[in-house]
């Protein structure tokens, strides 16, 4: 059974059709990559799934339950988490406090939230900076923080929006290891938008390709990289 089902999702902004009847599934435990040239509609789709945009057409199901058009906080409470492309950490709160905001979803106790937040901070490897203000972290560290914070809501599935942008080679390597760890150890399903091909192909079990709002290909990384439509979409962008 699929964990996340996207059915004919359509989103328009004025005359522009950002998502045009996009459909695909994500199965439990998978890492699915969502790729496509700039402007293909990937972030728009994420925002539709996560409740920030209301789709103009189509439906979205999570764990068999329809979540189309629900408020973002409701979707988060249903254990579908997301990170943001431009990191939206809470700058004047510490690393611990940032993560605690996520951890509070399960508890009202400050001590309890603090403990759970601490565990996730350790998991992503930020323990050394736990008392630092979030604004004092490097970009990579802020991304780990965003991840730890979102993991603290105990999601069954994560939507990751371009986590790797702006990272150095070694930071990217750590990021990929972490993402794998999250799926392998915690069993969290992941739908990830990425531009860095070298990274996303080896990482994903399956790949979905968008171009100009439409889904143009779906399959294993192997299959997709050989697909002539996909090649055209990317080469055409050059």
């Amino acid at each position, binding site marked *: 059974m699929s964990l996340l089902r996207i059915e004919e999702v359509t989103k328009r902004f004025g005359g522009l059709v950002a998502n045009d009847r996009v459909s695909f599934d994500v199965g439990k435990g998978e890492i699915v990559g969502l790729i496509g040239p700039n402007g293909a509609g990937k*972030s728009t789709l994420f*925002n539709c799934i996560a409740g*920030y945009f209301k789709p103009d057409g189509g439906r979205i199901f999570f764990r068999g339950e329809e979540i189309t058009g629900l408020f*973002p906080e409701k979707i988060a409470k249903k254990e579908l988490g997301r990170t943001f*492309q431009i990191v939206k950490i809470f700058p004047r709160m510490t690393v611990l406090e940032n993560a605690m905001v996520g951890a509070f979803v399960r508890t009202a106790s400050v001590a309890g939230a603090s403990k759970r937040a601490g565990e996730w901070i350790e998991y992503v490897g930020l323990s050394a900076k736990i008392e630092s203000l979030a604004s004092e972290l490097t970009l990579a560290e802020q991304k780990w923080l965003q991840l730890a914070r979102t993991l603290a809501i105990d999601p069954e599935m994560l939507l990751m929006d371009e986590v790797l942008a702006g990272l150095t080679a070694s930071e990217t390597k750590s990021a990929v290891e972490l993402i794998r760890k999250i799926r392998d150890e915690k069993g969290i399903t992941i739908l990830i938008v990425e531009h860095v091909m070298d990274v996303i192909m080896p990482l994903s079990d399956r790949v979905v390709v968008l171009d100009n709002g439409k889904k143009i290909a779906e399959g294993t990384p192997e299959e997709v990289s050989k697909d002539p439509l996909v090649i055209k979409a990317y080469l055409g962008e050059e």
Partner: protein
Amino acid sequence: METEILQAVVSGLLLGLIYSLVAVGLTLIWGVMDIVNFAHGDFLMLGMYTSYVLYTSLGIDPLLSIPVAGGFLFVVGVVTYRMIIRRIMHAPMLVQIFTTFGMMIFLRYVIFFFFKPDYRSIGNTVLSGNVKFLGVYVGIPETVAALGAFLTTGVIYWIINHTKIGGAITATSENRVAAQLMGIDPDRIFSLSWGIGGAAAGIAGALLSNFFYIFPEVGGVFGLTAFVVVCFGGFGNIHGAFIAGLIVGLIESLGGYIAPPEYKHLFVYSLFIFLLWLRPRGLLGVT
């Protein structure tokens, strides 16, 4: 009864033309640089007092004060931009709100200090009396003011849409970076926008001074009404501001006809509240 309604409609349209002018100034600033000028109503107030001072000290007819008020408030607008607004262009929205708010208070109470809260008016001038038009009495000052407002709005419209500098203003409001790359200096455009915006309010004030009471807090109602008009007509949209001004003037006037006149502003404010509540829920700013 019928003539009474017609009376209300005509007054509303006349007042509405003035609201349009005030709103055009406000929406220009808003559209070009995304700054909300809470002191806009008080620019209008300064225009009124300019007329008043020229009239009482030099005996100059308010009609002739119009260009003076316009020029003075143009300068006030530019100075405001250069000395204050420029420093807060990239500040958090809260800071921007408070800054123009502070200006509002400052201007209002400087005038209050010198002129006291007294309601003043400009008495017998060149324009006085009523005219009967379609069975309805309209004051000549009101009519001239409305016409003056209409003309000024037209001039501003013409400047924006049919001159080179107007094109530069439009370009800057749509895409500042691109405009810069084309050689347009945003700083000059901003100064100019504040100048035109101020002048519009000042001229409106001078036009009003012929028949409206002049007092320090007059900027409050006009300022808030201008916001309603801009909200209605679309931020940065001059056409919209013009039409919305007329509609708001009508609503106020008809509201004052249906209900006790003290409540007429309530109609406008309620419209404002419902407009803001019913705007489409634009969540998120990922882009």
